[in-house]
């Protein structure tokens, strides 16, 4: 088993590890680094649970190999806030009951972070469209949409 050494900056900390080329970035984050906030659902790019930011852009961490991220900056849900000190988006999710079981939540948060940066999200339709790549089986999405709408309104 050949490995390759990579250096990635994860949530602001440089990480140097030897990885097998076939190691998915999602598994690298969870198993090698122990950052289990990033959830793994479908492992083929459909459910959105493993969404992270790579050099600032949201991507599916199950559709990229850790070796490909060499030299890149990664942000996971752990970068947003912590218990007792949630960031504004997490606080909005909390206040609007935008999560139940919580499995989809890390992906929803990272997706919403990028959506809020890139799109006007002027209507609920646009918010729903933006969230359409992230599956939630609990909430029916209503409260997630409400949380993101609140973030927009807050910004205005």
């Amino acid at each position, binding site marked *: *088993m*050949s490995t*390759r050494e990579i250096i990635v900056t994860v949530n602001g900390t440089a990480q140097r590890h030897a990885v*097998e*080329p*076939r190691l*998915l970035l999602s*598994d690298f984050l969870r198993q090698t680094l122990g950052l289990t906030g990033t959830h793994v659902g479908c*492992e*083929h*790019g459909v459910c*959105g649970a493993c*969404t992270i930011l790579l050099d600032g*852009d*949201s*991507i*599916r961490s*199950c*559709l*990229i*190999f850790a*070796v*490909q991220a060499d030299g890149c900056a990664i942000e996971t849900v752990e970068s947003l806030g912590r218990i007792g000190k949630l960031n504004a988006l997490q606080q909005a999710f909390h206040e609007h009951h935008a999560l139940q079981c919580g499995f989809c939540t890390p992906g929803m948060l990272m*997706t919403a972070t*990028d*959506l809020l940066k*890139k*799109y006007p999200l002027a209507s609920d339709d646009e918010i*729903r*469209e*933006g969230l*359409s*790549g*992230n599956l939630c089986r609990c909430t029916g999405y209503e409260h997630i949409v409400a949380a993101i709408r609140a973030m927009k309104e807050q910004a205005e």
Partner: protein
Amino acid sequence: MKPAAFEYVVAESIEGAVAALAEARGEAKIIAGGQSLVPMLNFRLLRPAILVDINRIPDLAYVREEPDAIRIGALTRHHQLETSPVIARHFPVLREAMTHVAHLAIRNRGTIGGSLSHADPAAELPMMALLLDAALRVVSGTGARAVKARDFFQDALSVDLAVDEIVTEIMLPKLPERTGWGFAEVSRRSGDFALAAVAVTLALADRTISEARIAMTGVAPTPRRVREAEALLVGRRVDCALTKEVVGLVRAATEPQTDLHASADYRRHLVGVLAGRALSAAWQRAEAA
């Protein structure tokens, strides 16, 4: 669900990439955005011995305007196309199509070269390449060639690319001045592959159509142009009777399949409805132009 082991090669240049492909003699796959390839690797539907990563090749992601054409680097991400002012100005129909391509996290990563080379029979970009008379620049160790989109897509997931060749650029000739466009798609959920989609451009000279293009996807092994309907439209003005004729020709040009998502009959019906809508939108825009 994890991929089988593979050897990983980072290509620093196009020459390096094609040399690695040639050396591997068909055992290598190129990875660009990986948004179609990695799921296939995860499912082990594909088990290439070598992955050649082209993401670090410099200057392969661009949208360049020339007097008569727009050139798009193969590594240009979908989100770049979606937000490019040059694309919005010259090919608003492509800009509209991009909003139907998957989701932001996929569009951030997926590339135009990858989408065209993968050639999913329900994808938007192959249809748009066909609609816009794209020419693809294909490079191997022995040189470069240009392939027209109409010759490139051969079958479902099958294109005119040898195992040692790579798509490096997509050239889109600019459209005539007074061109209207229409795009209509139905998918089960927002961002899914199309059950069917139709894109139309109509160029006007005086008060009648001087050039018509109709492309569709999701209803045959490859995207298709509907040349008979295009020919019928030239010299005419769009009205109800003509639209009906066009819709009939569109439906006749399909070879839809039944799958979990829709029956062949439904797809054939749907593509006609979408063609009518796209044609009507294109006509209104052309008249207003």
